[in-house]
């Protein structure tokens, strides 16, 4: 369908351009914002594929949470951009070498790539008949892969607790407000009326 093709060309063109700008932008904040644009267009491509659940999760997790943290860090860091860029040129020969090796390997892999005879039949469809994306994913994740899924969750929990333990500092001299104590205070024990004699002060 023509509309879908136009949409695909549009989103993928913007995605490639913004992915290029991620590494080309001089300002790291701009880089992060271009990265967000890349994620956004990737989500749009997922929608075109019919993988709407993945698209929304990509937006919520990567754009809504991960990239916000990136942006926080990059904005708060005091980076001297000119200083960073100055040494970049001396790595050019080595960088080019690595890039050429990678491209050669990709071409080698790509040129001998072939599909197994039965692969096209076993290919998973984005939307199995009669099921929404979310249901289809849930039925696989919570049946066949339930242990892997739970393990992944456990690892994330451990990582989260680890991060909290590593960064938690108890400050003994910090003044904290205890909300129950505060709520239990009444006018009687918070306010005292004092008779002041004239000329003497409190």
């Amino acid at each position, binding site marked *: *369908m*023509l*509309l879908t093709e136009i949409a695909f060309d549009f989103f993928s063109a913007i995605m490639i351009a913004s992915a290029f700008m991620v590494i080309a932008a001089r300002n790291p*904040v701009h880089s992060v*914002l271009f990265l*967000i644009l890349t994620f956004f267009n990737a989500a749009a491509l997922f929608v075109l594929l019919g993988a*709407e*659940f993945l698209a*929304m*999760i990509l*937006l*919520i997790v990567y*754009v*809504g*949470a991960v990239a*916000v943290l990136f*942006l*926080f860090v990059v*904005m708060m860091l005091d980076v001297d951009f000119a200083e960073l860029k100055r040494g970049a040129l001396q790595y050019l020969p080595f960088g080019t070498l690595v890039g050429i090796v990678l491209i050669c390997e990709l071409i080698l892999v790509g040129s001998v790539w072939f599909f197994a005879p039965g692969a096209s039949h076993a290919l998973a469809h984005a939307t199995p008949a009669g099921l*929404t*994306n*979310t249901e289809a994913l849930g039925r696989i994740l919570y049946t066949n892969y339930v242990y892997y899924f739970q393990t992944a969750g456990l690892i994330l929990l451990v990582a989260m607790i680890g991060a909290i333990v590593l960064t938690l500092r108890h400050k003994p001299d910090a003044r904290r*407000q205890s*909300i129950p104590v505060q709520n239990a205070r009444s006018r009687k024990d918070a306010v005292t009326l004092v008779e002041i004699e004239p000329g003497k002060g409190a």
Partner: protein
Amino acid sequence: MFLVHPFQSIGVPYGWAWFLSQAIIMVVLSLILMLSVAAVILADRKIWAAVQLRRGPNVVGAFGLLQTIADALKFIFKEVIIPSGANKVLFLIAPVVTATLAFIAWAVIPFDKGWVISNINVGILYLFAVSSLGVYGVIVAGWASNSKYAFLSALRAAAQMVSYEVSIGFVLVTVLLFAGSLNLSAIVEAQRHGWFAFTLLFPMFVIFFISSLAETQRPPFDLLEAESELVAGFTVEYSSTPFLMFFLGEYMNVMMLCGLMTVLFLGGWLPIWHVAPFTFVPGVVWFILKMAVLFFLMAMVKAIVPRYRYDQLMRLGWKVFLPISLVWVVLTAGWVMVFPHGIGAL
């Protein structure tokens, strides 16, 4: 959807007919939304004034009806001032992002049975994604202004929005468990035998209401703006139309959250009782009435609740709402396991 057949009957192929009809509906809906934002701002000020025994705006038009439009025109005709040290492009993109996100969120809100621009299966996730994108308008505005006050305020606003999104996420999970679908129309249909606000989910409704006040930086959580004490938060460097777009986005988000609460907890377009006089009223009228009641509550909160301190705000989000909603997810999941036939088993 309404216009697909007329377009097809004059010989337009289905794809383009669909495209044209969607485009027309979007433009019409956007216009209606902008007009209703004007009405909502006026209502907000009138309610606030009435609580304080003032008259509120009453000069422009009858009962001050045109006051918001006059204010908007004033903003538009003022000069756009861009601070000299500001990042010009990002400075202007930020309000556009905020306003655009506020508009596109309405694409999945069903006003009546079938009255929705895009009836997607992951409607709730879409709204959650859009609201989490809203943080960018704030951060980028604060950073691009090149002003300490704007930047600090933007960081605080972002921290506030991210914190309350966590509990909103868990509240959404409880609703999804009850409804068994991520589609907003299906969630409304699931409430045909009882609105979710009057079930086990009532505490979640309260938490969602308070969280949505924090999410939109409405009083009592408007401490970055705190107009009686501080400069105007991350928008301090903004003037004219860019400021107007932030203002528009803010009120659109408030309305959107009222709409979302209507869909999630108050049965969307469904009437109060499924008996004769109530079923004659069109669904869209019910929807707007419920939204109006919720907005009235929000306006009353603005008028009568004192402002929170920042540490109190963070405590409420992380130490009160998050544990309660987390426990409620487990509780709701257990309830759904025990009564698998939904709330009809109540």
